[in-house]
Every structure is written in C-alpha cells, then in structure tokens.
C-alpha cells in the first residue's frame, strides 16, 4: 500500500483536523483548563479552515479506493465543519466556573473528523472507522459534565444504545460481505449484480438500522430526547447538526452507491423509517415542556422528512435532501443559540414557558426566534419551506405521492408546536422571574445570522440548489 501525494491531497481537511487536534490536546495537557477559551476559539477557527479547505480540496479517490473526495462529500464536509465550528463558538460562552474542560473542543474536532471520513467512505471498513471515531467522541462529549447526574445518565444511555447499534451495524456489514464477497462499495455493487438474495436483504436491513440509529430515525431514536436534554447545550447543537449531516450523508451514499441496483428493496425500509419518524417526531413533540427535548423530537421529525427525499431514490431526491439538511443545520444552530441565550441570573433555563413575554423584553431575540421556528415549520418564503418542497416534489415525481401527503399532514401537525413557541414568546404574559440576561455577542451573532440566512434564503435559493444538484450528480 503506497501512500503517495494524491492520497494525502484527498484527505487534506481530515488531516488538518487530526493533526491540529492533537496539537490542541498537547496544548491543553500543558496549560490545562485555563486556556479553555483560546483552545475552543482555535478549534472553531480550525473547523472553519477545514471547511474552506474542503471547498478547494482536490477531488478523486485515494488509499486503494477506501476513500473518495467528490462533489457530494465536499458539500457535506462544508456543512459539517461549518456546523462544528459554530457549535465550538457556542461552547466558548458555555464555560462557567464549575465547568470548563479543554477536552471538549478537541473531542469536537475528532468527532467532526470522523463524520468527514464517513461521508467520503468508499468501503464498509471506512464507514465503520468513521462512525466509531465520531461516535466514541460523541459519547464522551455527551457525558462531559461528570458531576451532573442527568449528563452522566445521558452519556451512559448514549453509549450503551450506541454499542447496540454498532453491533447491529457490524452484523449487517458481515452479512453483506458474506453475500457479495467484498467490502468495498464497488465490490458490493458488483456482488449484488442486480438481484438481491434474501441473506443480503437481511444484511441490508441490519445495516440501515445501524445507520438509522445515527440519524435518530424512529424507531431507533429512543436515545435522542434523553441525550439532547442531558448533554451540554453546545454538544447537543453539535449532535443535532454536524452529526446528523454526516450520518445522513452516509445513508445517502450507502443507499445510492453500493445498493443502487436494489433500490426497490431498500426503499421499502427507508419509507417505513420516514413515515414512523415523521409521525412520531411530530406527535411526541407536542407535549414536551423542555425545549431541548422538544428539539430532539423536532430533529427526529426532520430526519423523517429528509428520508422522503432518499426514498425517491433519484438525483432530484438527493438534491432535495442536501438542501433540506443544509437549511436544517442552519435552523438548528440558530435554535440552539437561542436556547443557550435563555439564561436568568447566570443560570440556564430550558422550559418552553420561560419564553413567555420574550417579545416585550428582548425583541431582537424574539424576532430571530420567530424566523427560526417559522422556518422549521416550513412556512414560505423562509428557507425551511424549500427543503420540504424539494423532497416532496422528488417523492411525487418518483410516484410516491401518498408519501408526500403523509409528509404534508405531519408537517402541519409539527407546525403546531413550532408556532406554539412563537405564540408563547409573543403573546403570553411575561412571568415574574424577570427577563433573560443579555446574551453573549457570539450567540447573538449566531442566531442573528441564522435568522438572516433563513429570511434571505429565497434570494440565493437558486445558487444552493444548483450546488446541491451538482453534488447529487455524483450518483447519476
């Protein structure tokens, strides 16, 4: 196995993060938590740099076809690193006297590296490597606040269920290997030869189930609410954005590349996951009182909507997915920046009813909240509308109009709890607890920019769709 320069070229962003991550680790080991702020800011800067590198990194395969950098992976990496960078920025403000750990930004860098490897995978081995790197980092991140009961519980649950899903995934991979005789995507596709044996399908089901855990598609989502609520909020933001983007991109790649010839088979599983996720996500969110738990169900629902695009099994579907995920990431970053801004007398509050009277106390924040949650509900002309529109259109074009109908109905149901938040913020009487503390400038920047992006998305929607479409053309 000769690594030559072209191998190095295709993994430039990952290399940058891996090496610099170690450097930060050493820095932290010597300086300790005193340099938390600087280390975290550096980590954020590194991720933005990695995003920039990802845009210009040369395309092509490497490492004996274990790894590929193509238009699709570039699009996904930009979103992953961008989301990771913003999450790291939010982590800066999250530190307090009782909680300040330099391992947090370093682990975020490694998690992002793992995600980045996932979206470039060309072999089931690479897939597993990427998943484990990102997951193991994520488990620790979720449990970072060891002194907090809820955080420890969340980390433990995440780890155990994650291990279970890894078992399922590995079993699926071994079945696929057994029935096709290869682990590389090329070999698997050749091994299938257009006809699916029953053993292969069982393997496929296990494989998809394992991946569904990562994107928290129902019924493999049970960890999500507990982890979202228990983890430190910047970590939740990371899990809800970068993690989801990476895992979802992997789902797309695995479905569209090795298993492209048996679309009819995997489509059934994806449709089931999509329907259950959309319904479960929409309904279970209604009675949540904790806003982070609500966001967990919201992202379950969003994954269901995005899966509709995968179910279409077409380039248009993938394009829709990518646009959906990109806007989803921006909306979630904005939402979590808003949640992080919910602080009274230095203590974070997480109850939805704490938002009452927000418009009277902090109008700019309330307006950002209005835009973000209207966009989540898919109200035109905000960004959230276009993602939904594209995936549903793709589904209709593929003949699954009834799936689009289910999507529309659940989308209406989900509008209930998004708009309820807006209603509480704008029309409910403020509580006696007083107004929120003035938010940190970086948080204001995040939710402000997010709102502006969602508001102005209609102006550059053509550009984003073209880019996503060019990325999706990899699977032509």
């Amino acid at each position, binding site marked *: 196995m000769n690594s030559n320069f072209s191998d190095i070229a295709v993994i430039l962003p990952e290399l940058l993060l891996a090496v610099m991550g170690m450097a930060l680790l050493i820095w932290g080991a010597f300086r300790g938590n005193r340099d938390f702020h600087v280390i975290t800011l550096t980590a954020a800067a590194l991720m933005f740099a990695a995003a920039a590198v990802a845009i210009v990194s040369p395309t092509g395969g490497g490492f004996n076809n274990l790894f590929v950098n193509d238009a699709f992976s570039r699009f996904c990496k930009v979103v992953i690193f961008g989301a990771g960078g913003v999450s790291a920025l939010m982590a800066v403000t999250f530190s307090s006297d009782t909680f300040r750990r330099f391992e947090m930004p370093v682990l975020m860098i490694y998690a992002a590296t793992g995600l980045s490897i996932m979206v470039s995978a060309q072999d089931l081995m690479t897939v597993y490597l990427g998943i484990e790197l990102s997951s193991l980092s994520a488990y620790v991140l979720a449990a970072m606040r060891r002194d907090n009961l809820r955080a420890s519980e969340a980390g433990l649950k995440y780890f155990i269920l994650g291990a279970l899903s890894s078992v399922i995934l590995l079993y699926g991979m071994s079945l696929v290997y057994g029935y096709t005789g290869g682990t590389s995507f090329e070999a698997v596709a050749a091994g299938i030869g257009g006809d699916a044996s029953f053993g292969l399908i069982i393997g496929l089901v296990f494989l998809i189930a394992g991946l569904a855990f990562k994107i928290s598609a129902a*019924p493999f989502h049970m960890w999500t609410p507990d982890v979202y609520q228990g983890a430190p909020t910047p970590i939740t933001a990371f899990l809800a954005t970068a993690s989801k983007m990476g895992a979802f991109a992997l789902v797309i790649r695995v479905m569209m590349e090795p298993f492209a010839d048996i679309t009819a088979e995997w489509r059934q599983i994806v449709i089931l996951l999509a329907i259950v996720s959309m319904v479960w996500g929409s309904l279970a969110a209604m009675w949540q009182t904790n806003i982070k738990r609500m966001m967990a169900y919201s992202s379950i629902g969003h994954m269901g909507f995005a899966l509709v695009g995968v179910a279409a099994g077409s380039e248009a579907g993938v394009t829709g997915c990518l646009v959906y995920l990109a806007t989803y990431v921006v909306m979630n970053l904005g939402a979590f920046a808003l949640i992080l801004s919910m602080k009274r007398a230095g203590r974070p509050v997480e109850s939805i009813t704490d938002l009452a009277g927000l418009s009277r106390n902090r109008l700019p924040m309330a307006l950002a909240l209005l835009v973000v949650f209207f966009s989540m509900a898919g109200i035109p002309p905000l960004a959230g509308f276009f993602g939904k529109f594209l995936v549903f259109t793709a589904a209709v074009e593929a003949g699954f109009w009834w799936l689009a109908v289910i999507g529309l109905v659940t989308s209406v149901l989900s509008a209930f709890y998004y708009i309820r938040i807006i209603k509480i913020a704008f029309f409910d009487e403020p509580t006696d607890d007083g107004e929120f503390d003035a938010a940190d400038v970086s948080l204001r920047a995040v939710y402000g920019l997010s709102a502006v992006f969602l508001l102005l998305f209609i102006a550059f929607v053509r550009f984003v769709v073209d880019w996503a479409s060019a990325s999706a053309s990899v699977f032509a």
Partner: protein
Amino acid sequence: MFDFLIEKAIVFLPLIAAIITGFADKRLGDRNAQLLTSGTMVLAALLSVWLFVQVGLNHKDAYVVPLFTWFASGDFAASWALRIDTLTAVMLVVVTVVSSIVHIYSAGYMADDKSIPRFQAYLSLFTFAMLMLVTADNLIQLFFGWEGVGLSSYLLIGFWYHKPSANAAAMKAFIVNRVGDFGFALGIFGAFLLTGSVAFSGETGVLEIARHVDADNPLPGILGMSFDTSIIVVTALLFMGAMGKSAQFLLHTWLPDAMEGPTPVSALIHAATMVTAGVFMVARLSPLFELAPLVLDFVTVIGALTAIFAATVGLTQFDIKRVIAYSTCSQLGYMFFAAGVGAYDAAVFHLMTHAFFKALLFLGAGSVIHAMHHEQDMRKMGGIWRKVPVTYAYMWIGSLALAGIGIPFLFGPAGFGFAGFYSKDAILEAAHAAHTLTGNFAFWAGITAAFLTAFYSGRLIFLTFHGETRADKHTFDHAHESPLVMVGPLVILAIGAVLAGGVAYPWFMEGGHHGYGDAGKHMKQATDGATFWAGSVVKDHDLIDKMHASAAWVKILPLVMAVSGLGLSAIFYLLMPNVPKQIAKTFAPIDIFFRRKWFFDEIYDFLFVRPIQSFGRFLWKAGDGSIIDRFGPNGVAGASQLLARFFSSMQTGYIYHYGFVMVAGLVAIITLFLFGSGFAGQLLSGGN
C-alpha cells in the same frame, strides 16, 4: 424608469403618501400627516391639470405608459400600465382636484378626531385606487382599481368603527357592491372569451376589436351563443358592476347608508369620484356597449328610473347628508341614461360638473354640520344663514348648479348659466334627440326629476338656513362659521360649479357633421386625433346634430321645471311652513312610501338578507359545527393529542425499554420482508 415621470407621479404620489402616513401613523403626528398627504395630493392635482391641457386641449395623441408585466400565461397577458387619453385626463383632473380639496378640508373637519393620520392615509389610498382605475389600460387593472376603491370606501365608511351603525353601513356597502362586482368579474371573463384580450390599447385590444365589429364581421360567440347574444350577456354583466358601484336602481341601497362615514368622505367618494366609476367604465367601454343596443336600452331605463326614484326619496328625507346622497344617486341616473342613448360625452360632461357642485354641496353641508355641533337633522336647524354666511353662499351656488339654473340661448346656442345647466341640458337634449322609446321615457323622467331636484334643493336650503330656528338655544348660539382651512378650498369648487359648464361645453360637446365636411359623415366610430375626445369615447355625431336641431321647448322646459321647483319649495318652506305637513298628512301613503325609500331595505331584508342569514346559520351550526369541525379539525386534533400522549409515554427513561424498541423495530422490518407480499409490501415497493 424615469420617463413619463409626471404620469407616474400623479398615480403613485398618493400611494407613497398613504403608505408613509398609514404605517408611521401616530409617530408622524397629525400635522405632518395632513401636510404630507395634502401636499402630495395638490402636486398630483397640478400635474393632472397640466396633463389635461396637453392631452385634451393641445390634442396630444393618446398614449400608454408601461409599468411592468403583471402576469403572462399562455395567450393571456396583463400589464400594469397607465393609459393616458382625454377620458383619463378628465377623470384625473376631477379626482385629484376634488381629492386635494377634501384632503385640506379634512384638516379642519377632523380636527377633533383621534386618528387623523389613519384618516388621511385612507383618503390617499382611496385616491391611488381611483387613479389606478381611471388610468387602467386593461380590464384587470380596472378591476384592481375598482376593488381598491371599494376597499377604501369600506374603510372610510367604517372609519368611526366604534359606532355600530357605521360598521353596518360599511358592510352593507361592501356586500351590495359585491353583487355588482360578481357580475363585473363575469363580464370581464366574458369580454376575454369574446375578444381574446383584456387590454384596451392596441390593435388586439378589446376596444379596437369592438370598433371593427359589425354585422358583416361578427366575432365568434361564446359558450355556444351567437355573437349578438354573447355581446348582450357580456355588456349586461359589465353594466351590473356599474350598477353596484354607481348605486343604480336595485343596487342603490348602500349609498344613503354610506353617509355614516365622515362628511369629507361622502364628498370625495360617495359624490364626486368613486360612485362615478360606473359611468367612467361604460364610457371607457363605449365601443363594446355600442354593439349591444338592447343593453343600452336597459342602461337608459335603469338610469331614468334611478333619476326619478332617488329624487322622490330625496324630497322626504330630513338628514341633510341623506338628501344630498339621494340627489347623487339621482344625478348618476342622468349620467347613465345619457350613456344609454349614446351621448357618452354628455355623461362624462355631467360627471365632471357634478363632481364640482356635488362636492361643494357635501362639503358645505359638512360645514353646516360642523357649525351645528354634528347635528345632521334639518328639523333641528333653521335660521342660521347669518351665522354662516360663506357656507350659505356656497350652498346656494351648489344648489343652483345642481338645479341647472341658466338661461338658454343667451350668448350662443348653449345658453348661459351654472355648470349643471349645460351638462344636464345636454343630457336631456340627447335623450330627446335619440327619438327612441327608451330615450323619450328617459327624457320625461329627467324633466320630472329636474323639477324634483330643484324642489329638494330649495327645501334643503330653506329648512337649513331660513325660518325660525328649531335648534336648541345652546347649539344655535354657538353656531359659527367654519375655519378658513375648510371654507377656503371650497372657493375652487364654487368657481367650478359656476364656470366649469360654460368653459368646458365647447370641448366636451363638440362634434356633429358641421365643420367636418363630407369626411365627417361616417364619423360615428371614427377616431380623429384633432378633436377633444380623440376617440377615447364613442361619439355619435348624428345624435349631436339632432341635439343642435332640438326644438326650443326642449331647451326651455328644464329651466321652467327648475325655476318652478325652486319657487314651489320657497312657498312651502319659506312662506307657508305648515303646508308640507298638511300635504304629507293628506297623501300619507305616498309620503310614507317615499320616506321609507320605496321599502327597498325592507323588501331586500325579507327576500335576501333573512333567508341567506338563516341558511348561513344552518350551514354554520349543522354543517360546519357538528359535521366538519367535529370530525375534521377537532376530531383530528383530539386524536393527535391522544397519540401524542401515547408517544410521549413511550419515553420511559429505562434503557432496556429503549433497546427493546430498537430490536423490535428491526424484527418488524425483517418480518415485513419475510411476509411482505401483501398490500403493505406492494404499496411500499410501488412507484416507478
């Protein structure tokens, strides 16, 4: 973007003022709101006058100012554009001048109101919509303006929304207009089907197509009807819209109630401009209406009926504004029967003169109401002419113009007199000269109405200003002339009410074959760039010849009627105040019939309002409430709530439950594949 700046400024200045004033509202301040809206309006009025001189007097060719494409779908295209021709220019002057005066007048009249910026914004918004209407170059934009003025009218009638009667009147105006608009919209669809276009200008425009249609070159009919039937249906539907907007007989019931709005609104919208939109529309589409003689007969009859019906009701009303409102209704009837006999020029002429003297009357009445501390009942007025001398003079000028006082044959064939004299006589001459059954009916109805008009005008003046006062002592003692900001601008209207007729008569009523030589013989539908109208309305030159040749008695009779009407009212209300009561008692049934407005409200209430209300209540309670809501939204919402609780309860927090759900899901999917040849399997693998 910067060409045709004047035309664009005229139309869009009021819109800009309305937007700024409307949204800034209280932050702008009352004085700034008044200055902004009035200033832009006056500027628009000056520009309009300039435009009128260019187009109407200097005979600049008609032209279209394109703005942008509204929508284009297949063969169907509609643009935003400003069509500038003589008809538009006349309307622009009327609308902007009256609107400017009303804007300024409102500063005084509404001085005590709490929502001055809102009021001014509505006024400007209305003016914008009306300007959109008169400059429209296609039926769709016309409809936009049509609905826009309807909306502003609704807002302004209900301006004092805390008064239930104002809300009711606003809704009534909107709903009755809806009946007409329904017909109008169908008429537009029909015109499009018939001609394949909604545009006015151009070779393929509705008007040009209509000009080239005759018995030899008919268009294909629509919906399986022959062309003759089709054009009757289309124009009748279009006229239905005009009946609603211009408060013609059967659809007139909203206009008197609209007097609930502030008086400046009544002057601007419900006298001078919006209600004349129907007349404008018929004139604009005159080439189309000319193709349907039957509909023109109908227009004539409706106009004549309105003229006489409204005048009879006007005799018996005691609310000063309602008298003028019925008078407006009646005068609109004149305009319509003029159009019905083919004298569109006379109709628009009367529209113009009427705008001046009717706005003057309304604003004068507003001044009286202002002086009398918002008393509108003429039974509680009287004897105040010394206290409000300027207003008194204005009311006389307005009334004399309305009654059509003037001396025929003095200083030329048109005679010499107040503005209304020229236009009303032109209309009556045209009706007589038409020599048709409907024309004669209209003529005699018009003559009768002329008598009634003079009578109720006199009655209004004498009851309000003369005799022993019937006001309470406090009100009477404090009666005072209105401030300069109110009575000052009325000078312009007063000048218009005196002079507009004489000055404009040669322009509006030019034509006939004399002076055009042989070439003029077939000019009925010709366009001639060198004339005032320049083809913007159809000119019936034969009719004008006949009008010029009318017998002397036709010209003298209206004056006789007017003078005797005024004289009789002077006897009744000035000299023998007890006579009217005696007469009312003697002819009690007729008096009640007139006073109750021919029982239209009661009949409509019984025929339409109540049945529709109870039907609506049935649909609401039985249909919507107990079926759709119960099983639809409420049912779904209830089910969602139950399911949501169920799903939430699945989240127990126990890790083995979570693991169980995952494994169970996995097993379920595999089971589906194992036994998945059934319905679900087929559905999921379906598609293409």
